[in-house]
């Protein structure tokens, strides 16, 4: 295996110039709302198809990794998650910016992204053929339980009132039910609008609830940053970056745990980065001693989301490389390139062209090293964008996010959806309901429903099927423990303190 890794590294060094290019483009693409690595790779297909297969895959893997890091920039600075994967980063990243800690938050996001990605890529490199077996253990039941970890967040991020949080979550689940049902294709609440047939569009919902609603709130004040923290933030040199790096290194356990959660979710075909980052955030919040700080600017929240969505990237390549199953949109585009070059996919890839399979992972490894070098020093300069007055930022955010809403699917209708969610988000905030809970319902509701219905169909309608598989049962136990154990531990600690 090591000979293969070295041979792949040697080959990848031949394309060294492509990796920073891919990472740079990925960071840019990730930072622009609405663009994703998938739709950019589709646009660039003529370019990648014209390259050698190894070079094309190295470029795509670099762009894919960079895009997850790039997604954290607008999420942290402006509460603008370009994709679902960066939504959980907003929960704590943006409050940190409001407290004048934008630079620190960005440094944490970049470092956690790069270290988390690097760590799981090394695991992938060491155990690539063996990890493929994991895919066989995850079916509809297991996927359903994993999504429930994310849904459980609704009860945890209630924003003060449990009742209001649950109402918001239920409302989100209802909105998420819009579209054709997953079994018999029966339309639900589409009002005959073709743009809603495939469900509530994700990107407009995300940018509307978070970014546009925040832009509406911004115009009520002059700056994003609290007035009391502004002068300190303006004077800050590299201290924020240093603090961010130190915090990330101190919380290395959280980085490793979150990246592993992302990695496992990544291996499951179809699960995706959004689920990975929400599950990781839920776990970090459940087992944190300072859970009250989550949602108010906890560095652990940024680490949880960013380490998970970058830990996921190498995991998501495993089903593609080892079984020939594209686990998501980006992997599907990679599959097109592999097929265009006549590369055998699945188990035969390791027999016929092992250097290509390992080469993709090595390219990702190099990309994460490049990301540390390229990304972390950018935190200081990028954080300065949060110093712009809101009269400049708010219209810019609304314009960019509306364009982003359009770009994702190419429908003007999606811009109206984004505005609808923007107004909704603003009203929710003003009335003390959690927009985060609504978003969780909109994003995770359809996924949970899909896997739940499929599991029920597999069991001929008998719900006992949900408890029929060992791994599924293990995950159920973990889910219950993650909900109950923190409360029990807190009670135990309180009792100890009283005594």
């Amino acid at each position, binding site marked *: 295996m090591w000979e293969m890794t070295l041979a792949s590294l040697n080959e990848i060094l031949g394309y060294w110039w492509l990796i920073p290019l891919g990472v740079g483009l990925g960071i840019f693409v990730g930072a622009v709302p609405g663009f994703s690595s998938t739709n950019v790779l589709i646009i660039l297909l003529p370019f990648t198809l014209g390259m050698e297969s190894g070079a094309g895959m190295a470029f795509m893997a670099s762009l894919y990794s960079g895009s997850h890091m790039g997604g954290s920039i607008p999420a942290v600075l402006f509460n603008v998650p370009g994709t679902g994967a960066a939504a959980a980063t907003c929960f704590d990243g943006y409050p940190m910016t409001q407290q004048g800690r934008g630079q620190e938050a960005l440094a944490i996001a970049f470092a956690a992204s790069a270290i988390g990605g690097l760590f799981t890529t090394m695991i992938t490199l060491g155990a690539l053929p063996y990890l493929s077996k994991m895919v066989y253990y995850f*079916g509809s039941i297991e996927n359903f339980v994993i999504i429930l970890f994310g849904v459980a967040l609704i009860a945890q991020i209630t924003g003060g009132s449990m009742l209001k949080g649950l109402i918001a979550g239920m409302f989100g689940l209802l909105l998420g039910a819009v*579209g*054709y049902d997953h079994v018999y*294709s029966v339309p639900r609440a589409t009002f005959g609008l073709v743009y809603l047939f495939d469900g509530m569009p994700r990107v407009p919902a995300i940018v509307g609830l978070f970014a546009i609603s925040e832009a509406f709130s911004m115009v009520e004040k002059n700056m994003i940053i609290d007035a009391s923290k502004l002068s300190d933030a303006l004077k800050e040199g590299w201290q924020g970056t240093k603090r961010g790096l130190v915090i990330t290194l101190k919380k290395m356990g959280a980085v490793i745990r979150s990246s592993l959660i992302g990695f496992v979710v990544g291996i499951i075909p179809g699960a995706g980065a959004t689920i990975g980052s929400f599950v990781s955030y839920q776990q970090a919040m459940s087992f944190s001693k300072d859970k009250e700080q989550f949602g108010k600017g906890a560095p652990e929240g940024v680490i949880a989301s960013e380490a998970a969505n970058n830990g996921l990237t190498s995991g998501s390549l495993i089903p593609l490389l080892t079984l*020939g199953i594209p686990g998501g949109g980006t992997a*599907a585009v990679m599959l097109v390139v592999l097929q265009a070059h006549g590369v055998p996919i699945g188990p035969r890839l390791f027999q016929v062209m092992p250097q290509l399979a390992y080469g993709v992972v090595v390219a990702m490894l190099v990309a994460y090293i490049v990301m540390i070098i390229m990304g972390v020093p950018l935190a200081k300069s990028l954080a300065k964008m949060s110093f712009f007055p809101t009269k400049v930022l708010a219209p810019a955010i609304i314009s960019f996010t509306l364009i982003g809403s359009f770009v994702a699917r*190419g429908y003007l209708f999606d811009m109206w959806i984004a505005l609808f969610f923007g107004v909704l988000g603003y009203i929710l905030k003003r009335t003390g309901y959690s927009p985060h809970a609504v978003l969780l319902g909109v994003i995770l509701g359809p996924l949970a429903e899909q896997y739940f219905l499929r599991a029920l169909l597999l069991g*001929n309608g008998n719900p006992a099927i949900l408890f029929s598989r060992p791994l599924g049962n293990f995950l159920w136990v973990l889910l219950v423990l993650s909900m109950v154990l923190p409360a029990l531990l807190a009670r135990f600690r309180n009792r100890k303190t009283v005594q």
Partner: protein
Amino acid sequence: MKRKGFSAAVKMICCVLAWVLVIGGAAVSWAEYPSKNISVIVPTGEGGAMDRVVRAVTNVWKDYIGVNFQSTFHAGASGEVGYMLFSKRPADGHTLLAGNIAPEMMMYVLQEPDFKFPDDFVYFACMDSDPAVLWVRKDGPIQTIQDLVEEGKKRPVTIATSRFPHPSTLAALLLAEATGAQFNIIPYGGGNPARTAGLTGEVDAVTTFLSSSLDFASDVKFIVMFQNENKWKDISRNAPTPKEALGIQMPEFGGNRAWAVSREFREKNPEEYTKLVDSFRKAFDDPKLQDEWKKVGMDPRFLEFKNEEESMKMAQDMIETAMKYKEILKGKK
């Protein structure tokens, strides 16, 4: 005193603008077809078999028609989203649809969408023929169609499909009806998730098109091909037909990837329509197409040309079949 009306300068600008619009519009309408790139609506997601096929064909076709093609993917509601958007595009021949006749005509019958077939568009050419098959894991307990039917008589066997409105789903349901076996059809919302469920053993079998499962051919066994005669014996490794395996005569089920254009364009612009169709035929007959087909991982043995008349007949036949088994497909029977 204020002057009434528009100034001479404004009037002049208006006249120039009107002239530009009239002449410009006329120039566009007189321009030789196609006067701009052709937009292709694909009613399935990117990265799938249709994406690959469209890429292969348009790489050759562009040389014969003289313009480039730009694909956009509008998956959703079993293809309804793509068809609805296609039906709303201008009928100028610059928007085509690349679809799969059988599943999408089934969608038309089951979901009763707002577009009208054959009033709104015509399938002007078919480019391949892809039979529906049932496959199982090579190392699984079920190895033949007889095993599957026997097992289906003891318990409901689970069969993954991409979606309910699909010819392979109907084929499996009719096979169950003919044999008395219980087939529990599980729609996975796409070919890739359905195949994954089959490979990971979540389901007992998968029903799909043959071409889309060839990537996994070394891991799976094709146990029945829903055709009267197996014309793909080598690549399906002698998968039997229902008649050969079980003595059952069934209708043939499969997919035919085809091109569609607005009927209004066809009726009002016969010369342009002929140019479109002829250029496709030339591209199809070009040996380069076989290379392009191979490049995207498809087997050229699936290539099969059908003209407008044959394609439209296939669509009408599929509508009749879907109407006949509508209740079964809606899960009401």
